């Protein structure tokens, strides 16, 4: 058997291990082993590639060394609350890698053509265009998602020094890099468009507002331009500049598609970019005729699409509505002062007294728990209640937090057993048998208006029916609205107690009050 066949068999083994990895993620008990199999699969694919030919090792070893150090440090240092930012960033790196590999293959092929080799076929050309577009949209879109999650893009407040370094540094790098490459070429309409796209990306990323008139026009213009340029690249692939203009224009599209998408819609965006990074890898597979890239990319693409669908369904919104629509109060949104007339505020002692006599308690966490880093304090309260033989469970809404499964990871970090984390559909039918529901930093996902008011922006969104519990305790800093911008009548119900304060401090106060009684 020749070397090429052996390599391809190793690739099949790697692909099977990737599939097993994802399959074993079906249960927390097998998931760790699954992840290890996936890593072994990756090693097999890498080793099989490296023994399949003669290589110049300088860049290979250097690249792997640098990447390993950065990746390991990022993975070991990141806080669990910042997981959405990290995943966002990694999505972007995947996209960038695809852009560069496809670009590199294009340059390599046409420098070989110049030396007399056969030109690439249509498959390679089309796949290069797809890698360029999807990869660039993924990279710049992920940077925007990262910047929004880390709260330094499109904000008006003062930034931390590191945020300023990243924000201005990135824009400067894009603009300067674009101008440097553009000016090194002969002046032509193409080089001008390339420089323009770099400057537009850099400029957009410095805005303090995420919406401005003409946003949709730029969206459509850059999408049409990217497709048109794609056709030109297919017709004349030897012109490397065309590819870079394509990448630049797709970058504008990536920024503009992501910038106007707000906080609570982030889980959808992160899942969608995850899918794009997979599709970019798959199209790169078509560029270099490599099956393992195609299979792995298709798996990741499918995974991202499924998660995107789950997130959209959990908000009762279509993907188009998340990407292009606006979310906010409508004309007939009731006045907040009117809704909140009967709000009752409670102290830690009063809440503790309510909990003392409870038999079944359900905790509903939201993004506020992540912001306050309250997961450990929550666990302490739950442990104390359980020591008094009170049953404690957690109800997790699919879009709670900033990425799919965000709340689950935080609670797992705090040693909460996973079988206590209940899905919305599982807990809702039993809500009327719950004595106390504690809502911690969640708002729209427990707003009963979703069931009752068909004209509300969240109408039809499945919610956790905490209002059906005997008593509801809402821990929140103020009565400010959630992402949907509408008041929440839950806060003013007869059976609701508002416990105002920072999530972590409130939980610690509550624990102290419980211990005193």
């Amino acid at each position, binding site marked *: 058997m020749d070397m090429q066949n052996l390599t391809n068999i190793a690739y099949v083994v790697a692909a099977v291990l990737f599939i097993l990895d994802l399959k074993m993620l079906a249960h927390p008990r097998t998931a760790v082993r699954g992840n290890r199999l996936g890593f072994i699969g990756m090693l097999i694919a890498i080793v099989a590639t490296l023994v399949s030919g003669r290589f110049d090792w300088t860049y290979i070893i250097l690249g792997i060394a640098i*990447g390993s150090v950065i990746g390991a440090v990022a993975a070991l240092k990141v806080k669990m609350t910042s997981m959405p930012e990290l995943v966002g960033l990694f999505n972007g790196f995947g996209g960038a890698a695809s852009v560069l590999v496809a670009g590199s293959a294009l340059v390599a092929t046409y420098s070989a053509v110049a030396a007399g080799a056969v030109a690439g076929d249509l*498959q390679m050309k089309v796949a290069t265009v797809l890698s360029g577009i999807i990869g660039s949209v993924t990279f710049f879109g992920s940077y925007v998602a990262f910047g929004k999650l880390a709260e330094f893009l499109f904000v008006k407040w003062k930034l931390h020094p590191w945020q300023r370094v990243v924000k201005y540094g990135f824009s400067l790098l894009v603009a300067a890099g674009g101008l440097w490459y553009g000016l090194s070429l002969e002046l032509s309409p193409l080089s001008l468009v390339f420089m323009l796209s770099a400057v537009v990306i850099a400029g957009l990323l410095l805005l303090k507002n995420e919406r401005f008139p003409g946003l949709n026009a730029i969206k459509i213009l850059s999408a049409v331009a990217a497709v048109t340029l794609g056709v030109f690249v297919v017709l004349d692939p030897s012109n490397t500049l065309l590819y870079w203009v394509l990448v630049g224009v797709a970058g504008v599209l990536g920024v503009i598609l992501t910038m106007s998408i707000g906080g609570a819609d982030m889980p959808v965006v992160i899942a969608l970019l995850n899918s794009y990074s997979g599709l970019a890898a798959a199209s790169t597979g078509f560029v270099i005729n490599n099956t393992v890239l195609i299979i792995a990319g298709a798996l990741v693409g*499918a995974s991202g699409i499924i*998660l995107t669908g789950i997130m959209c369904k959990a908000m009762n919104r279509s993907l188009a509505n998340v990407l292009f629509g606006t979310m906010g109060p409508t004309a007939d949104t009731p006045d907040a002062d009117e809704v909140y007339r009967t709000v009752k505020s409670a102290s830690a002692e009063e809440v503790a007294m309510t909990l003392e006599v409870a038999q079944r308690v359900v905790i509903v966490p939201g993004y506020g728990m992540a912001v306050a880093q309250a997961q450990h304090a929550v666990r302490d309260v739950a442990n104390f209640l359980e020591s008094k033989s009170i049953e404690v469970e957690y109800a997790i809404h699919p879009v709670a937090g900033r990425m799919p499964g965000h709340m689950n990871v935080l609670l797992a970090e705090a040693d909460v057993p996973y079988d206590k984390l209940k*899905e919305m559909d599982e807990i809702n039918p039993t809500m009327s048998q719950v004595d106390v529901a504690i809502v911690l930093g969640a708002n729209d996902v427990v707003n009963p208006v979703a069931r009752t008011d068909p004209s509300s922006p969240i109408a039809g969104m499945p919610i956790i029916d905490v209002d059906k519990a005997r008593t509801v305790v809402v821990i929140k800093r103020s009565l400010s609205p959630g992402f949907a911008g509408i008041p929440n009548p839950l806060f003013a119900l007869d059976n609701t107690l508002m416990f105002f304060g920072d999530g972590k401090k409130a939980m610690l106060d509550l624990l102290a009050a419980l211990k005193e009684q």
Partner: protein
Amino acid sequence: MSSLVMLITVFVLAIFVGIEIITKVPPTLHTPLMSGSNAISGITIIGALILAGVLKGQPGYSQLAQIMAFVAVIFATINVVGGFLVTHRMLKMFQRK
């Protein structure tokens, strides 16, 4: 069968396999699923390695192509190493119970 049709077949079948297995992942593990699949999408490293390792004088050698592939190796390695490690960290927390 042409190689393009074969590759498309592989792609379509892999999508179906992906849909089948990923719908079985419970919501509790959706974050590790994302970081884990992120690590898998680092498979682009294969392409990056081949292109970064082209020897001088081989057909298709170009310094520009090599430097682009070198940067791609860095990005893809970050994805692979960082992705699998952070997923391991998270899954360990779920495994404790």
